[in-house]
């Protein structure tokens, strides 16, 4: 059983890595297998999305498969499939002793994840879906995108740089080849990488306190599956030879065998360690009727207080002034639905940021409120929205960003560029520039220029091309801001004014 499990873990982890690596632009306009496929099988995201957005979508069928499987077989997902669980286990394997640091409080902590689940679902119910922040798959994809992949990319660059210095002629070409196949094409940079990375590494290093700490005590998906696993018919049992030596409970990486005689059905990952270690070879798994099943106890008082906590927290965050007036630089990707709905759906998995062709989609911090943390925002100074690209909508797992055709996308305004005439070079110094006009991608350029005479310091007159923005044509892609030669602070800046998704944020059309 253990060997099978290891194979399965490797298999799913490699599938995950494969899907992750190919969730990017590799020369085709449509991504056939984005890594969101994993999220489709995640029942927690499905349930939370149903609760918060009151909508059922077709893809949720996949998560029903996971639930049904768990209903009959138990938490196989955690031990055999979940790539984050696998990662946690590999880190846990580095820890030599299996001593339980928290053994004394284990009995209380064991139900912590259930309370967290209740808290998140309750807050989801009141339109505050924080679940994406702590869903293991979403968390893994986000951390891989924002932290791990950039680090790997930089390490490779460094290696090939050193090889080049050592005289290896093809170093850069090989690096380039890797960039075109598995590494990110351009070295990624993400703001708030520290925060995401900190969270990720803290969770991973909790394994040194106790093996698979996250999976045992914190994971809300584990809790959800644990609830369903209570009804499973696939169980672990011991034969007559068992003398309660306790070896099994020493190696158990889950909470299933705190006491060797008491197997907690809802906590077992079916990893098979106990079967492997048993000196009597008397641990079995199978479809057997049990005499008695044990579950972690949930106190009613705590259950209610965590639900109430979620309820109050969802109102608490509405104090935030950004809920009254949006941040002007909150430029959501094209296809994003209106802000309230968007926040209800976005699970902050970071896939849109990963596929973004120019790397312009960045994780937010608190600019859109607590519920907007790590949700995508276009930062044109870092990267713009490519005119012919619709990738972010293709990979979004929950429909927070709609899938658009190229025609539709080219009509959607995500904001409007405005020229800062106090900084723009032609306005300021009478020097021709209009790089913004050159790059403006719309068929009829939204940026145009007007030739005007400027009086220079020495009294001479000079004709200068002054750039202007036509707000009717501008779609807010931000390439002008990205390409503006003023490197410190561009003189043309995009804000979310006039965005299509918010009807009340329209602008007057100056044709009159």
């Amino acid at each position: 059983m253990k060997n099978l499990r290891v194979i399965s873990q490797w298999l799913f982890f490699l599938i995950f890595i494969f899907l992750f690596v190919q969730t990017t632009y590799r020369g085709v306009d449509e991504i056939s297998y984005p890594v969101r496929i994993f999220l489709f099988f995640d029942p927690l995201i499905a349930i939370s999305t149903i609760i918060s957005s009151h909508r059922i979508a077709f893809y949720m069928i996949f998560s029903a498969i996971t639930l049904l499987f768990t209903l009959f077989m138990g938490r196989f997902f955690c031990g055999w499939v979940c790539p984050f669980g696998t990662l946690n286990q590999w880190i846990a394997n580095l820890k030599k002793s299996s001593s339980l640091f928290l053994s004394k409080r284990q009995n209380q902590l064991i139900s912590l994840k259930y309370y967290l689940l209740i808290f998140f679902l309750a807050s989801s119910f009141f339109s505050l879906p924080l679940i994406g922040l702590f869903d293991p798959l979403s968390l893994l994809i986000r951390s891989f995108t924002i932290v791990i992949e950039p680090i790997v990319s930089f390490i490779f660059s460094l290696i090939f740089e050193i090889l080049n210095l050592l005289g290896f002629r093809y170093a850069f070409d090989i690096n380039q080849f890797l960039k075109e196949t598995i590494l990110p094409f351009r070295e990624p940079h993400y703001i708030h990488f520290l925060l995401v990375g900190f969270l990720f590494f803290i969770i991973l290093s909790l394994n040194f306190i106790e093996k698979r700490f996250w999976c045992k005590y914190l994971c809300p998906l584990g809790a959800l599956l644990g609830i369903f696993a209570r009804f499973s018919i696939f169980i672990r049992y011991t034969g007559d030879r068992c003398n309660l030596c306790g070896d099994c409970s020493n190696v158990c990486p889950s909470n299933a065998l705190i006491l060797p005689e008491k197997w907690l059905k809802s906590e077992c990952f079916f990893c098979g360690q106990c079967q492997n270690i048993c000196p009597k070879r008397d641990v079995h798994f199978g479809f057997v009727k049990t005499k008695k099943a044990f579950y972690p106890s949930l106190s009613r008082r705590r259950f209610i207080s965590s639900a109430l906590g979620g309820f109050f927290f969802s109102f608490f965050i509405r104090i935030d002034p950004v809920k009254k007036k949006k941040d002007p630089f909150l430029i959501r990707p094209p296809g994003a639905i209106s802000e309230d709905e968007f926040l209800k759906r976005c699970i902050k998995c970071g896939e849109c940021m990963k596929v973004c062709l120019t790397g312009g989609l960045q994780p937010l911090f608190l600019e859109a409120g607590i519920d907007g943390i790590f949700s995508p925002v276009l930062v044109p100074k870092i990267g713009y929205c490519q005119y012919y690209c619709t990738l972010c909508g293709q990979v979004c797992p929950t429909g927070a960003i709609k899938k658009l055709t190229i025609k539709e996308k080219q009509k959607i305004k995500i904001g409007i560029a405005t020229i800062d005439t106090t900084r723009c070079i032609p306005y300021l110094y009478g020097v021709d520039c209009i790089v913004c006009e050159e790059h403006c991608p719309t068929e009829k350029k939204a940026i145009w220029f007007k030739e005007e005479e400027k009086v220079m310091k020495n009294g001479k007159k000079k004709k200068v091309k002054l750039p202007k923005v036509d707000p009717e044509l501008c779609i807010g892609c931000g390439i002008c801001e990205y390409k503006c030669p003023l490197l410190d602070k561009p003189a043309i800046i995009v804000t979310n004014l006039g965005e299509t998704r918010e009807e009340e944020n329209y602008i007057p059309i100056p044709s009159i």
Partner: protein
Amino acid sequence: MKKRFSRRDFIFKSLGLTGGLLFFSPENLFAKEKSVIFVAKGKDVAKTTRSCIDAIGGISKFISRNDIVVIKPNIAWDRRVEQAANTHPEVVAEMVRLAYQAGAKKVKVFDNTCDDPRRTYKTSGIADAAKKAGAFVSYVNDKKFKKMMIGGKHIKKWKVYTEVIEADKVINIPIAKQHGSAILSMALKNWFGAVGGFRGRLHWGLHHSIAEIAHFFKPTLTVMDATRILINNGPQGGSLKDVKVMDMVIASTDQVAIDAFCAKYLFGIDPYDIPYIKYANELKMGVMEIDKIKIIRAT
């Protein structure tokens, strides 16, 4: 052990050689002669290109056996062939085939793009066409730019793509199109795709930049793609209304003359109204006076 000719050696020597050539001003010698422009017309792009090159005296006049050839098209924008923002893929492919026929060892095709290169290489059709013709198509690699002396009054130093410098022969294949700030973007402007750095800054005093950057590069041959030209909303266009079909391929060894010719006959703009052509002429890079340019029609 046999001493190898290192890259550094090569760059220094070729720079020295260029410097020496500059000193002797071979352009002056050429300038006294008439600059010649070869124009071929025809619907079949590849055939037209070939007949244009035949008219100029065949590709082997320019490319020798075992040469490493860089072909520099314009692949700047994420636009399709008919939108006339990039060089026609068939022109590129035909030039690649011709270069191999002349015995070139390796033909490289690349451009430092404005839009994302993955998209522009694909959408323009150039990557596929050139690869099919056997060229080594690569994206520009940031690490392969080196700061070099441009030696102009306006641009003193700039990052230049080393593969262009290291090549034995360089063929410039621009497309003729309208350009907001440069008025027209043709052969001289196309060299912006062979430099790196933050190119937006080259746009302050753009016309000086174009002339001086182009002065740095010494193409063996310039082949202008005027199969269709962009007359409005340049340099990237987008609307087919702005495209004018000309069915012409134009070749010359004089990059200034070819720009002057195209400005005059394709767009109807007097070359004297385009400052960078004037500056290039002042830098003695070529001839801009239309009456001094001999035009030969290939058949």
